């Protein structure tokens, strides 16, 4: 009896091997998954970009968010539910395997840089979040990770970046299959340092000595040197630009440029407006938004004011001289808003503007105005990277810069206002930098919603997912008692008053 049973056992083992699936992949492939999945989506438009008055929607329901300053769990959970299970899980798993392996330092380092980037977006969105225990569901069987304080998260992100950057070595292991820079180690070093600059500057309000110490330690020649160093996803079907998908598909007639943004660009004769905005003049419906009536003429662009929802829009239509909501200006879906438009993580323009502020504060050597102008120029030149004929004429750039030279006393306002423009559609950083710097001084949404009665005029963070309340309550509760009530108006650590 024994022999047949041993045979049976072997057969049972053999049956339980899945021959159709992989037991491992190159961690670089997982990095590429993270790169593709980290970009913004519709939920970020209704919060991140609507808060800073660049794009919003008059419609409520599923698109509710900063347009009425309400909690919409359908959107507030987005970064959490996209990053942890898709992006961070793969980064943390890949890092774990590369550490076990021990021979691929470059691969390991770029995954650590990407992980720092994603965690920064995550903590900037919610404040305290699971960090040190996150993503370890399989590796450590940690199913209910504790929340770390944002201060400790930033501290670790900064040291991770410093350590990963210094470990990169052009003569080390080949990382040619990574999708962000095609294996260019120098570009990874510049991306890492530019991200480090961003992380350090984030602390300017809450801990300026630390910010200064880190910024002053960055070798400026290791920052991004031109638009060629921009960190972006070169979107290509089926990996489309997730934010822009909303300007093209089922929500295409629902999002409009904010009147504040349009007016600012018009007032300043900004040549970028023509590349950004489109108006379907006289359109009375989504179907009426056809090329025949489209105009990119900056003079006739009309941004949609915040405040009223589709209720009683008549007054607004009259005030703005448009015939319907569909007659307001939109993000041009053939250019910057195209589905295949690049999705930026960190740009040379943003880096130069941050450097300008650092120089102005005396934390970095060099002329603030020079970096400021270079930042503006870089962003305008960056338009050439979008589909369609979007390159801004050099003469227009020069004229704009000449008219907007850095003036004494308004440096921080000017630099960060340009940062606001330079961050248009470029990831998540516009809202974070607005909270950090306090510039530009945007008018508040008249519809204060959940902010009513608080001391805040703008959403300072997004609320935690409902699921965490039912599944990971104790850990979440500890975070809430440290950080303050789980509200849109609660300020996160670096956003100190």
């Amino acid at each position: 009896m024994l022999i047949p049973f041993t045979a049976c056992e072997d057969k049972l083992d053999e049956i339980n091997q899945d021959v159709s699936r992989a037991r491992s992949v190159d961690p670089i492939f997982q990095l590429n998954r993270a790169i593709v999945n980290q970009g913004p989506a519709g939920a970020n438009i209704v919060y991140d970009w609507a808060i800073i008055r660049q794009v919003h929607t008059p419609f409520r329901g599923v698109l509710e968010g900063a347009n009425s300053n309400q909690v919409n769990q359908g959107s507030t959970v987005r970064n959490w539910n996209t990053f942890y299970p898709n992006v961070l899980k793969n980064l943390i798993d890949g890092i774990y395997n590369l550490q076990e392996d021990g021979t691929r330092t470059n691969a390991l380092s770029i995954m650590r840089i990407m992980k720092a980037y994603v965690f920064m977006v995550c903590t900037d969105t919610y404040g305290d979040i699971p960090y040190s225990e996150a993503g370890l569901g399989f590796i450590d069987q940690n199913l209910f990770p504790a929340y770390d304080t944002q201060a400790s998260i930033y501290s670790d992100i900064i040291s991770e970046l410093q350590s990963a950057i210094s470990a990169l070595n052009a003569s080390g292991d080949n990382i040619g299959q990574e999708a962000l820079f095609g294996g260019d180690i120098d570009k990874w070093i510049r991306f890492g340092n530019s991200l480090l600059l961003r992380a350090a500057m984030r602390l300017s309000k809450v801990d300026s000595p630390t910010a200064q110490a880190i910024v002053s330690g960055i070798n400026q020649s290791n920052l991004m040197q031109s638009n060629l160093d921009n960190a972006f996803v070169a979107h290509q079907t089926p990996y489309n630009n997730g934010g822009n998908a909303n300007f093209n598909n089922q929500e295409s007639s629902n999002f409009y440029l904010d009147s504040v943004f349009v007016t600012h660009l018009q007032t300043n004769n900004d040549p970028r407006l023509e590349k950004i905005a489109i108006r379907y003049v006289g359109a009375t419906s989504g179907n009426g938004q056809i090329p025949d009536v489209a105009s990119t003429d900056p003079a006739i662009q009309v941004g949609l004011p915040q405040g009223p929802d589709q209720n009683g829009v008549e007054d607004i239509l009259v005030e703005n001289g448009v015939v319907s909501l569909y007659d307001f200006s939109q993000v041009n879906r053939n250019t910057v808003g195209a589905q295949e438009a690049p999705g930026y993580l960190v740009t040379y323009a943003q880096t130069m503007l941050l450097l300008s502020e650092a120089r102005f504060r005396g934390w970095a050597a060099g002329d603030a105005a020079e970096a400021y102008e270079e930042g503006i120029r870089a962003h305008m030149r960056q338009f050439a990277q979008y589909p369609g004929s979007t390159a801004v004429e050099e003469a227009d750039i020069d004229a704009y810069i000449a008219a907007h030279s850095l003036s004494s006393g308004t440096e921080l306002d000017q630099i960060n206002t340009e940062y606001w423009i330079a961050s248009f559609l470029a990831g998540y950083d516009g809202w974070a930098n607005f909270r950090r710097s306090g510039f530009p001084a945007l008018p508040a949404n008249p519809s204060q919603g959940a902010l009513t009665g608080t001391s805040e005029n703008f959403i300072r963070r997004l609320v935690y997912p409902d699921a965490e309340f039912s599944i990971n309550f104790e850990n979440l509760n500890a975070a809430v008692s440290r950080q303050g009530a789980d509200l849109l108006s609660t300020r996160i650590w670096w956003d100190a008053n």
Partner: protein
Amino acid sequence: MNLKLLDKVFVLSRYAMYGMFLQCVCYTLVFSEVREDQNKGKETSGEPAVIEASYKIMQDITITGKITDENAQGLPGVSILVKGTTSGTISNIDGSYSLDVSEGAVLVVTYVGYQTKEIIVGNVSVIDVAMALDVKALQEVVITALGIEKDKKTLGYATSNVSSDEFTTNRTPKFMNALQGKVAGVNITQLGSGPQGSTKIRIRGNASLGKNNQPLIVVNGIPIDNSNFGVNNGGSDDAIGATGPNNNMDTGDGLSSINPDDIESMSVLKGGPAAALYGYRARNGVIMITTKNRTKGSGVRVEYNLNYTNGSVIDRRDYQYEYGQGENGQRPTTPFPTSGVWSFGEKIEPGMTQVLFDNLTVPYEAQENQLKEFYDNASNVTNTIAVSTGGENGGMNLSISDMTSKGVLPGNEYNRKTANFGFTQKTKKLTVSGNITYSYENIKNPPNIGEQDFSAVVMYTLANTMPLDVLRDNAFDEFGNEQAWSRFRNRTNPYFALSRFNNVVRDRIIGVVTAKYDFTDWLSLQGRIGQDYWSRDQDFNVPNGTQSKGAAPAGFVNGNYVTDIRRFRELNADFLLAFNKTFGNIGVYATFGGNHMYQRLDVNTEQGSNFYQRDLYTIGNASQVTPNYILQERMVNSLYGSAEISYKGFLYLNGTIRNDWFSTLSPDQRSILYPSVTGSWVWSQTFESMPDWMTFGKLRLGWSKVGSDDDISPYNQSLFYRVEPQNLNGYPIGQIDGGTIPNKSLRPLNTVETEIGLETMFFDNLVFEFSIYKRTAENQILTREVSNASGYSNTRVNVAESSNKGLEFAIGISPFRSTNFEWRIDANATFNKSEVISLGTDVEGESITVGNSFFHGELRQVVGRPMAQLYGWGYLRDPDGNIIHDANSGRPLRSAEQIEFGTAIPTSWGGITNSFTYKGIMLSVLIDFKLGHKIISGTHVNAYRHGFDKATLPGRDQGYVIGEGVKNIGTDENPEYVPNDVQTPVQTYYETIRGFRGSEQSVFDAGSWQLRQITLGYDFTRLIPDNKYIKGVKLSLVANNVAILATDIPHIHPDQNGIMSDLQSGLEATGIPVTRDIGFNLNLQF
């Protein structure tokens, strides 16, 4: 003469259909071999089973006579067979017969439910036979686990036999649905998923906290695959469910491929003890189906059955039609797609108009008949023809059938063709029987349910002034794209939705061959091999130009096309050695057996999108193709044995033991040994003198333990990775496959069940049975949601324990009975109390979330509470219970925590059948009920937030709502509540529940009482003159889902929820409307 002669005679028995209901009008026929020892102990039946007529040697003679029943009335349709031959006849309408026989022949006279008689032909030419009812002997044979036939009185556990009439006369496309309310302990839920859909069967509650508590289906002794292609039967990522976009469709289950006309008998093994020999797969109970493999009588018989039903949509919407389409109190006046699905518009007045689509002005008037205008009538036609032969040494049965069922969704059709061949052949020692069933199922356009795109949801959220003809005529634009009709582009125009196609074709062959060899009269060996094989091809599209899909890149057309090809094979090979001997008063029946089970499933899927050319749905035409291949194998080896010891035929003790080895578990966890013990005492046969009224009485006790690897799919111990078929500019993309954390230490779960039962009959008439059971499932493997911050969504752990305690009873009585008229009441009811005992934590109130609604609400398991608790957000209330409103906006605020609303599983269910027979006319009326559970109605959530529900009328006339309740003018810490006086715009106020996912307003008692079936039948056989060709004509008029007698659920039929998974019980998302069906069943015998 004598008993010895009886030794190998087949006896036809009538059974009193214990444990089920409606039985006195319906009988099942089962062949059984009567064992000698049983006959010895059966003197109490008092039957001189063989009548010796005095005789002398004669040549061929013609015998005539009359067969009468217990009331001396002529009994038609009785089989009179010359023993040892195939010649015989059937008694005619008045019970008389005529037959040519040889001298000395033995007539075997059989009729369902009566004692079989054998008569030796003597020197008389007239033989009248008075048949006696076979109630006293209770020779009810039950097909038990592994196909072992047993006398019901020996069983120490609850079983129910189900007559095939129960599901063939008044039938539903999903035939098991017809048993709703008829079998004690069994809860059948019909789903609002169309005629091709699945049936949800739960025996004695949900056996575990898992997603699928469907019983095992065994056909001719071989388990068949009952994979379910129902909506969201996944619930976790191990399920190979539907693939591709907008494919929330229910395309049936394993039972779908069975033609009910082929079923000879069905028994339901309810508890663990009953099913112990099926082991690991039987923890949810077993439905044993035996298909026909020979005729009931002798000779050649041809039977034809025609069934036709026509169903009309039951529209239960109770919408408001005072205010029409529009938002914020305005009707659509500009040429843009309005919401199309919002009815917060203006008060409807005569002569008003609205602007729809591209500047189309149409009257603004209530459209109350949208459902009836859009949906068709359903119909179902089944034709079955069967030829069978029979004789003492065997016979065969061949049937073919065709069922064509049209659903209410235009274009939805379900066709099933089956061919079934069964045979049995005996020699002195060897019996060989077999069955092969081929079925072909063709499903066209099963309805998509529960999601916004392409689904029934839209029909329930169309604005109440949206004229359907306008929707229909403008569904397409000039290019053939969907014309935008709603600013919500994922609400597919229902007429555009009809342009998509979805075809499912399934071929299935189930075959089994059994050989049994009797070494002696006390030792036999049986070998059996059976295979269930099916292949299923599906292809479907999402049409070019669908609004909800993103535009394709320039130069391409959007849409999707998916092909999905699956093959499944399950092989079972088993042997059984049986020992059966009597030693004095002691009988011993022992078996030893083993089973080898192997399953293999492979799935090939290709999804294409971004097409080169319009209207060409092929993979080749797609510029972007995502292929996927899945292979799953599993194997279980088992050894088992059983022993039954009987004393004097009234005391029985039975034990089983089984060991399983599972391939799905790691080597040190894969073996599990488990036993069962049962006993029964037939007290009515114990004592010499029993009162006359005590016809039968039995007490039984059972205990069992069953191990199972259910809920563990193969390959659960490892983490897998995936490389995406599409790269990004040449850079490969890969990731961890799946969101479930693998767990190497999973072990089999255990189900322990104890039951006590009583089976009694008084006055040959009043049947009363009940069972008390307690079933505890320990070490359940639970898919537990974990924090997304762990990187994963869930994990599986052996932590859960839950129990079901219950009482089920069946009662049958004839309050009035006379020669021509009988009124019979059969009723059954089950009361079941479930409890979650542990989830890894024993702390009362700790919970896990197991499923989420398509709309609002979630399902949790909570320690110390009944299983399947519905949870959702509600309103924030002050200490006095008033709703607190936002002090600025006046909108109601969300509760601080989710609220527990109650269990989603009924705590009692059952049915009452009243049947009346009068001179061959039979009328039966079934009322069934399910009570004690709750529902979060997604349909109501939508009706409320879209302004259809009448509760959204207050405030419309003045244009604002002042929410009833309070507002807080103090601080959060020191609240001060004053009556709310804030004016909130009407739509904003009622829509608020969507923002905070409020469920409280949409929770209802899910219980219902329904007049489920009415059947009116007449057996015309007695009117037919003695005709050689037609031997029987039966016609029944049937009605199903006749009326809802009581329900609290608004807008939908209580059975309209279309979701199969137990992880989404009670989380209703609009299904396809339920139909009220009427039709007829015609049965002809030749």
